[in-house]
C-alpha cells in the first residue's frame, strides 16, 4: 500500500466521521437554535451546554425496539432508510473541503452530485410505498413529485456556474471564483439553487412529504428506532451537503483571507446550515399546489432566464 | 290495526294496548314507574302523563295517564307538549321530596329506574325546604335488603309479591305519606320469588343482599348470556363477574322461557362458583401415602397417557349437569357403547319422556305457553320445589279462564286492578295430583294425594276417560274414577290444556300416564301440551345423547370388563345406591374425576381434574322443553381450571385418539354430525360471527379500573384474554349496538340504565326479543299417525305391613346441592326430616315433632319427624337433599322405627 492510498483512506474515513458527527451534532444545534429564536433555552441539561444530548439521543435511538409493522413490505421497508444515507454520504465524496482534502476529484463532480441527489428520491418513495399506510403513501407521493420537479431547475440553476467556470469539476469551480464569488454574477442561480436545495432535503418550509399536521409524519410514519434515526440523520446530512455545495459553487469554497482554507469552508457551511434552521424557525409551510406551481411557474422560467442571460453575456464577452 | 297520532304523526299499533305500552313499543321514551309489562297498568304513579286531543282542531287537549288510556284508533296525543312535560317534571319532583341523598351508597345506583326517569324528565334541583320522611327498615332474610327511605310508593312490589307470585307475608301498611312496604314484622320473605323484588323495585328499596357482600356497580360487571343450572327449566340469566369472582345473577329476558322473573334458587345459588372449596388444580393420588396431592398439568396429562393406552378398558360416566359438549367429549373418548349416563330408573324415565315427546302428538310447551294455558293437570310433581318458575307460570295460568270472562265485560286486560277486581277469587281449572300437599294446592280446583302408583292410575284413568282407546284402569274405585271424569271434562272444555309430570317421583308409570292423558287430549282435537320436569339442567340433553345405565357400568366392573372409569361432573353417590358405588369405585383401578367441587366421589379418585363451572365455560343445555340454549363464559377461569371437554380433549390427544377439537364450535359441529337429534349448529351464532367486523363486548363501555385492577400484581397491564369459542370478547371494545338475541350480554340502552332497558331489546314491549327469543327447540311432536298409548297400568298401591314406601320431598332450597354453597340458600334450607301421615305416625307411636329412625337400602339414621296429613297411608316422605341418608335412590321401601 502506497503512502498515497493510506492518506486517501484516512481522508475518506475522516470525512465520513466528520460528516456523520456533524449530522448528529446538528440535532442538538437545531434544537438549541430553535429554542434561541423562540425565547427558550433548548437542551441544556446533559453535559456542558447540553452538548451530550446528542449522545443521549443516540443511546436512545440505538436501543429502541426495531419494530417493523406486520403489514409492511419488509425488504423494501428496511432498504429505504439506507438509500438516503448512502446517496448523501456518497455525494460528499466530490466536495472539495479544502485544497487536497476531498475523497475524489471527479471531472464530472457536479453531475455526480446531481445523480446522487436524484437517487435519494427512491428512498422516500420506497419508504412511503412499503409502509402500506395511507399517510406514508401520500407522503411518498408528494416527495417523489416534489423532488423530481425541483431537481429540474436545480440542475438548470447550476448550468450558469458551469458555464462561468467552464468545468463540472468542483475544485475547478472553486478555483474559478478567485476573482469574484459566483453568487454575484450568478445571484439568480444561487437563489434558485438554494430554494431547490430546501425542497430536495424536504426541509421546512418545503417539508410537505412529512407535513406532521396533515400526514402524521408522512413517508416515515411507520418508522421507529434506528430506521427512523437513519431518515433523521439523512435529513441533517442533506442540509450539510446542500450548505457545502452552496459554499462551493457560489461562495468561493474554502477561499478566504488569514484563516486556513478548511476553517473558511467550515464557517461558510455553518452559516448556511444556520440559515436553513432559521428558515424553519420563521416560515410557514405552503400548500402543496402552491409548492408545485411555484416550482414550475416561477423557478423554472427564472432558471431558464438565468441560463439565457448568462449564456448571452458569455457570448457577448466572448470568453 | 289502530292508527294513533303522536305529535301529529300517524303510527300503527297493535290492537288492545294502552298508550304507554304502544308508545314504548314504538321506541318513544315516556317515564313510568308503576307499570310493568308483566303486571300491566294500575295508574298509581301518575308519571306517564301525555296530552290527549279530541281531534285535529283541538289544541287545548287534556292530560291523561298513558298507561290507563287505550290506544284506540284515531287517538291523538302529544308526548312533547310543554304543559305535559312540566306535569311530568312536577310529578317526579314530588316523588323525590322524601327520597334520601343516598345514591352513592345505594346498590341500585347506576341501574336505577328512578335515576333514569329523573334525568329523562329533567328534574335536577331540590326546591323544597321541608324535612324528609324516614322509615325504619326490616330484616327481610338472606336474599333481599330493605331500605324503606328510598320508596316512591309505586306499589310494584306488593303487586308482584302478592298478586303475581302469590306471596302472603308481604304487604303495604299505613296510610298517606307514611305508606310502608314490608312484612308485618321482621323476618325472612317466604316466597320463592322474593328475589325479583330487586328487579321489580324501580329504586333502591329492595336490593340484592348477596351482591351487597361484594358490591360492584352494573357498569363494572363483566357479563355474558348464561343459563341457570339449578333445575331443568333452563331460565336465562346474566351472571356478572368482577375481580375473578361471580357477583350476582340477573334475569335475562327470554319471552319463551323465564320472561322477566327468576326464582330465588336461580338468582342466589351462584355462590358455589366463588367457593373456597373449589378444585383449582389437578390432584393425583400418591402411591405411597394414598393421599391426594396437588399435581401440575403435565403430571396429570402423564397420568392420563399412562391410563388411556390403546385397548384400555375405559368407561365414561356422563352427567346431567354437564354441558352437551362435555358429555359428548367423554362419549367420543370412551366410545358410545362405553358411555353411561343415568341410574337404571332415571334412564328408563328419561327414555320414556323422550319417546313421549318425540313419537307422540303432544307438544312440549314453553313456560310462556304454560302461563297462557287455561287448564292444567299436574301429575306427581311438587312444582314449586322442583321447577319453581313453572309454578309462577301456573299461578298465571289459573287466571286465563276468568280473564276471558272479564274481557267480555269490556275491561281491557291491561287494566290490572280492574281485571283483578273482576276476577275476584275465581280460578281456572288446575288439578294437582301428588304424593303430598304442595304450595300450589291453594290454587287447585281439586287435589289428590296418593302413592306414585296411585297417581299413575289416576293419570291413566283420565286418559281413558278422554279417549276410550287408551288403556283402562282396573278397579279404579269410585272416588278416583269420578275425579278422573271431572279432570277429563275440565281438560276437554279448555282450549289450551297442559299436562305436567316429571321425574322427581321416580315413577316411570307416571310419565306414561301423563303422556297418555296428553295424547288422549290430542286425539280429541285439542292442542294439548305435555310438560315433563327434570331436576337437572341438562338431563334431557344427556338423555338425547344416549348412553347406558349406571347399573350396567357397575356390572361391567363386576365382571372385570373394565378397570378405568372417567366420571364427569358427577357425584355418583347422589345418583345410585352408595354400597353399589362403593363396590364399583373400590374395584376400579383408575378413577378419573372431572369436577369443580370436591365430593364423595372425588375422595376415591386417582386423578381429579379441575373443571369449569357454568360461569367459566361455554356450553349447551337442553331444558325440559327440549330447547337447546347456549351459555357463555362469563370470565376466564384462574389456575389450572379448564373446560371439561378440553380436559377430555387433552386426554384424547395423549391417547392418540383420531378426533380432536380446537374450539367449542368444532365440538358442536361434531355433536350435530354424530347425534342428529342434537343439531346445535344454529343455537347461537358461531365464534367467527362479527357485527361490523367486531366481537360483542362482555364489558360495558363504562367498565372501570382497566389499568388499575391488576396493578397490585404488576403495573404492566395484561393483554385481554382471547376467546376462541365465541363471538364475545373479554373487553369493553366491540360492537355496541344490538347483537343477535343469543349473544345479549346485558340490557342497557342510552338513558335506560336499569333492567327496564329490556324494553328496547324487544320487538314489542313484553314480547319476544328482537330477532326471536334465543334457544332452539330440538324435539317436535310427530305429525299425524296413530297414537300408540303406553300400556302397563300399575296395580294400586298397597301399604306394606312392616315397611313403608319412602318418597322424596323436594325443597327449592336444599334439594339442589350446588346452590347449597350459597350462604343465603343454606340459611333457608330446612334440616333433614321425614314426614309421616297421621295414621302411620299413630300406628308407629310417633307423636308430634319427635324423632324416628329410618332404615333403607342397608343404611339407617335418626331424623326428626313431621306429621303431614296429606301423605297417604303407607307412604313416608324423606327430605331430598343432603341428609345422613345420602346415596339411596328414592323412592323405595324402607322401615321407620320410633326412637327412644
Amino acid at each position, binding site marked *: 500500500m502506497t503512502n498515497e492510498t493510506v492518506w486517501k483512506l484516512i481522508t475518506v474515513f475522516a470525512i465520513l466521521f466528520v460528516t456523520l458527527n456533524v449530522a448528529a451534532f446538528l440535532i442538538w444545534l437545531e434544537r438549541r437554535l430553535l429554542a*434561541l*429564536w*423562540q*425565547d*427558550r*433555552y433548548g437542551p441544556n441539561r446533559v453535559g456542558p451546554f447540553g452538548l451530550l444530548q446528542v449522545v443521549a439521543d443516540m443511546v436512545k435511538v440505538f436501543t429502541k425496539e426495531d419494530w417493523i409493522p406486520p403489514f409492511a413490505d419488509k425488504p423494501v421497508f428496511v432498504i429505504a432508510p439506507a438509500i438516503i444515507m448512502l446517496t448523501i454520504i456518497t455525494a460528499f465524496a466530490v466536495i472539495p473541503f479544502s485544497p487536497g482534502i476531498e475523497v475524489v476529484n471527479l471531472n464530472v463532480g457536479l453531475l455526480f452530485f446531481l445523480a446522487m441527489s436524484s437517487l435519494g428520491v427512491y428512498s422516500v418513495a420506497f419508504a412511503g410505498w412499503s409502509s402500506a399506510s395511507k399517510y406514508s403513501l401520500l407522503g411518498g407521493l408528494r416527495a417523489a413529485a416534489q423532488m423530481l420537479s425541483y431537481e429540474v431547475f436545480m440542475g438548470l440553476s447550476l448550468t450558469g456556474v458551469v458555464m462561468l467556470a467552464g468545468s463540472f469539476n468542483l475544485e475547478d469551480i472553486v478555483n474559478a471564483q478567485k476573482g469574484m464569488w459566483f453568487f454575484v454574477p450568478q445571484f439568480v442561480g444561487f437563489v434558485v439553487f438554494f430554494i431547490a436545495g430546501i425542497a430536495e432535503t424536504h426541509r421546512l418550509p418545503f417539508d410537505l412529504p412529512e407535513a406532521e399536521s396533515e400526514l402524521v409524519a408522512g413517508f416515515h410514519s411507520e418508522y421507529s428506532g434506528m430506521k427512523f434515526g437513519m431518515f433523521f440523520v439523512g435529513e441533517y446530512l442533506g442540509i450539510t451537503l446542500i450548505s457545502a455545495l452552496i459554499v462551493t459553487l457560489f461562495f468561493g469554497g474554502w477561499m478566504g483571507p488569514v484563516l486556513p482554507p478548511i476553517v473558511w469552508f467550515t464557517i461558510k457551511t455553518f452559516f448556511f446550515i444556520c440559515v436553513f434552521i*432559521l*428558515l424553519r*424557525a*420563521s*416560515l410557514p409551510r405552503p400548500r402543496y399546489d402552491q409548492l408545485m406551481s411555484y416550482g414550475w411557474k416561477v423557478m423554472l422560467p427564472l432558471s431558464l432566464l438565468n441560463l439565457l442571460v448568462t449564456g448571452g453575456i458569455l457570448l457577448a464577452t466572448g470568453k | 290495526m289502530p292508527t294513533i297520532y303522536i305529535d301529529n304523526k300517524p303510527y300503527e299499533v297493535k290492537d288492545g294496548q294502552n298508550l304507554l305500552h304502544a308508545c314504548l313499543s314504538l321506541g318513544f321514551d315516556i317515564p313510568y314507574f308503576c307499570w310493568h309489562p308483566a303486571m300491566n297498568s294500575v295508574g298509581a304513579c301518575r308519571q306517564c302523563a301525555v296530552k290527549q286531543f279530541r281531534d285535529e282542531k283541538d289544541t287545548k287537549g287534556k292530560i291523561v295517564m298513558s298507561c290507563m288510556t287505550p290506544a284506540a284508533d284515531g287517538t291523538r296525543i302529544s308526548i312533547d307538549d310543554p304543559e305535559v312535560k312540566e306535569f311530568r317534571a312536577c310529578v317526579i319532583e314530588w316523588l323525590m321530596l322524601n327520597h*334520601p*341523598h*343516598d*345514591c*352513592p*351508597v345505594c346498590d341500585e*345506583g*347506576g341501574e336505577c329506574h328512578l335515576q333514569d326517569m329523573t334525568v329523562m324528565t329533567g328534574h335536577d334541583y331540590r326546591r323544597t325546604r*321541608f*324535612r*324528609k*320522611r*324516614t*322509615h*325504619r*327498615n326490616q330484616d327481610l332474610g338472606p336474599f333481599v335488603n330493605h*331500605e324503606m*327511605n*328510598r320508596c316512591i310508593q309505586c306499589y310494584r312490589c306488593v303487586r308482584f309479591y302478592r298478586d303475581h307470585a302469590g306471596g302472603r307475608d308481604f304487604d303495604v*301498611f*299505613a*296510610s*298517606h305519606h*307514611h305508606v*310502608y312496604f314490608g312484612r308485618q314484622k321482621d323476618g325472612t320473605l317466604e316466597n320463592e320469588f322474593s328475589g325479583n323484588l330487586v328487579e321489580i323495585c324501580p329504586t333502591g328499596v329492595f336490593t340484592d343482599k348477596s351482591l*351487597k357482600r*361484594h*358490591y*360492584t*356497580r352494573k*357498569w*363494572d360487571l363483566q357479563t355474558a348470556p348464561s343459563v341457570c343450572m339449578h333445575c331443568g327449566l333452563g331460565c336465562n340469566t346474566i351472571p356478572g363477574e368482577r*375481580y375473578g369472582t361471580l357477583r350476582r345473577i340477573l334475569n335475562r329476558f327470554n319471552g319463551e322461557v323465564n320472561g322477566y322473573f327468576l326464582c330465588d334458587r336461580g338468582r342466589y345459588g351462584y355462590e358455589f362458583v366463588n367457593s373456597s372449596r373449589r378444585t383449582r388444580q389437578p390432584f393425583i393420588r400418591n402411591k405411597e401415602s394414598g393421599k391426594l396431592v396437588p399435581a401440575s398439568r403435565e403430571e396429570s396429562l402423564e397420568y392420563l397417557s399412562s391410563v388411556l393406552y390403546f385397548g384400555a378398558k375405559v368407561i365414561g360416566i356422563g352427567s346431567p349437569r354437564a354441558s352437551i359438549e362435555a358429555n359428548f367429549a367423554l362419549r367420543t373418548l370412551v366410545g358410545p357403547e362405553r358411555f353411561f349416563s343415568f341410574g337404571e330408573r332415571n334412564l328408563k324415565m328419561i327414555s320414556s319422556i323422550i319417546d313421549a315427546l318425540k313419537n307422540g302428538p303432544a307438544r312440549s310447551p314453553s313456560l310462556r305457553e304454560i302461563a297462557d294455558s287455561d287448564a292444567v293437570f299436574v301429575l306427581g310433581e311438587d312444582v314449586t320445589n322442583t321447577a319453581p318458575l313453572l309454578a309462577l307460570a301456573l299461578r298465571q295460568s289459573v287466571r286465563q279462564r276468568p280473564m276471558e270472562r272479564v274481557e267480555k265485560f269490556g275491561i281491557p286486560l291491561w287494566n290490572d286492578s280492574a281485571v283483578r277486581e273482576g276476577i275476584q277469587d275465581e280460578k281456572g281449572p288446575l288439578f294437582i295430583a301428588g304424593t303430598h300437599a304442595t304450595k300450589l294446592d291453594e290454587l287447585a280446583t281439586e287435589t289428590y294425594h296418593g302413592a306414585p302408583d296411585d297417581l299413575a292410575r289416576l293419570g291413566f284413568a283420565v286418559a281413558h276417560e278422554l279417549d276410550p282407546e287408551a288403556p283402562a284402569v282396573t278397579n279404579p274405585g269410585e272416588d278416583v274414577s269420578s275425579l278422573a271424569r271431572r279432570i277429563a271434562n275440565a281438560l276437554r272444555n279448555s282450549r289450551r290444556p297442559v299436562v305436567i309430570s316429571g321425574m322427581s317421583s321416580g315413577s316411570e308409570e307416571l310419565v306414561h300416564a301423563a303422556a297418555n292423558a296428553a295424547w288422549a287430549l290430542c286425539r280429541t282435537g285439542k292442542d294439548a301440551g305435555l310438560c315433563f320436569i327434570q331436576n337437572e339442567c341438562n338431563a334431557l340433553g344427556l338423555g338425547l345423547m344416549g348412553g347406558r345405565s349406571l347399573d350396567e357400568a357397575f356390572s361391567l366392573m363386576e365382571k372385570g370388563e373394565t378397570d378405568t372409569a372417567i366420571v364427569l361432573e358427577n357425584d355418583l353417590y347422589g345418583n345410585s345406591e352408595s354400597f353399589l358405588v362403593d363396590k364399583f369405585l373400590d374395584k376400579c383401578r383408575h378413577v378419573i374425576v372431572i369436577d369443580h367441587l370436591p365430593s364423595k366421589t372425588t375422595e376415591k379418585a386417582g386423578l381429579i381434574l379441575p373443571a369449569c363451572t357454568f360461569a367459566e365455560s361455554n356450553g349447551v343445555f337442553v331444558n325440559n322443553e327440549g330447547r337447546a340454549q347456549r351459555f357463555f363464559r362469563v370470565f376466564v377461569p384462574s389456575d389450572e381450571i379448564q373446560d371439561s371437554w378440553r380436559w377430555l380433549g387433552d386426554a384424547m390427544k395423549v391417547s392418540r385418539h383420531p378426533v380432536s377439537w380446537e374450539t367449542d364450535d368444532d365440538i358442536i359441529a361434531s355433536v350435530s354430525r354424530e347425534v342428529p337429534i342434537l343439531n346445535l349448529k344454529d343455537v347461537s351464532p358461531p365464534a367467527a360471527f362479527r357485527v361490523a367486523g367486531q366481537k360483542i363486548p362482555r364489558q360495558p363501555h*363504562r*367498565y*372501570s*379500573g*382497566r*389499568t*388499575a*385492577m391488576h*396493578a*397490585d400484581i*404488576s*403495573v*404492566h397491564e395484561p393483554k385481554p384474554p382471547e376467546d376462541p369459542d365465541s363471538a364475545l370478547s373479554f373487553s369493553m371494545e366491540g360492537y355496541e349496538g344490538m347483537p343477535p338475541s343469543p349473544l345479549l350480554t346485558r340490557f342497557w340502552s342510552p338513558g335506560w340504565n336499569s333492567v327496564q332497558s329490556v324494553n328496547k331489546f324487544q320487538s314489542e314491549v313484553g314480547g319476544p326479543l328482537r330477532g326471536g327469543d334465543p334457544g332452539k327447540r330440538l324435539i317436535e311432536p310427530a305429525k299425524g299417525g296413530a297414537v300408540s298409548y303406553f300400556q302397563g297400568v300399575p296395580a294400586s298401591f298397597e301399604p306394606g305391613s312392616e315397611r313403608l314406601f319412602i318418597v322424596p320431598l323436594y325443597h327449592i332450597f336444599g334439594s339442589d346441592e350446588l346452590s347449597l354453597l350459597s350462604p343465603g340458600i343454606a340459611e333457608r334450607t330446612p334440616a333433614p326430616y321425614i314426614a309421616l301421615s297421621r295414621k302411620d305416625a299413630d300406628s308407629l307411636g310417633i307423636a308430634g315433632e319427635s324423632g324416628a329412625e329410618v332404615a333403607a337400602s342397608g343404611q339407617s339414621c335418626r331424623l326428626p319427624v313431621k306429621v303431614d296429613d296429606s301423605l297417604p297411608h303407607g307412604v313416608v316422605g324423606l327430605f331430598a337433599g343432603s341428609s345422613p341418608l345420602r346415596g339411596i335412590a328414592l323412592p323405595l321401601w324402607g322401615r321407620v322405627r320410633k326412637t327412644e
Partner: protein
Amino acid sequence: MFSLIRTMWTILLHMFRKRETVLYPEEKPYIPPRWRGRIILSRDPDGEERCVACYLCAVACPVDCISLQAAEDGHGRRYPEFFRINFSRCIFCGFCEEACPTYAIQLTNDFEMGEYVRQNLVYEKEDLLISGPGKHPEYNFYRMAGLSIKGKDKGEAVNEEQPVDVRDLMP
C-alpha cells in the same frame, strides 16, 4: 418576498430577548391552590374515611386507573376494602374529584412524584388516605344521607323527620 425576509429577521432578533423558561429544579414555580396534582383520600370532620366506595371516581376516570372494592362495616357504613390508583396511568384530569359525591377524593398541589420503578407508582389506600378533611373541611356525607350508620340513626340526619310509626293512623 420581502415579508419573508422581514419575518426571518424578526425571528433572528429573538436571540437577544429574555428567556421565558423557568429552570425548574433550581427555581420553584408558583403552584396555584387548585392545582391538580397527587390524589389523596380525605377524612370527614369526625375523622372517619370519607370514601363510601361508590365507584363514581373509577367510572369517571378516562384512563381507568382507579380500582376499588366496596365493603361495609357492621352498621351500614360503606368504605373501600382496597383503593388503588395507578399513577403511571393517571393524567391528573381531576374528573375523579368532580365525580366524588363526598369530597373524599381530592387533587393536591404536589406533583413531584417521579419514580425509577414504575411499580412504585401504584398507590394503595394506605398511601392515599390522609388524616384530615382537605378541602371542604365541614362536609360530612353521612349527615346528609338517609342511611343509618353507627352513631347516627334514622331521622338524625340533616333535614330529616323522626322515623314513621307505621302503626299510627293519625293523619
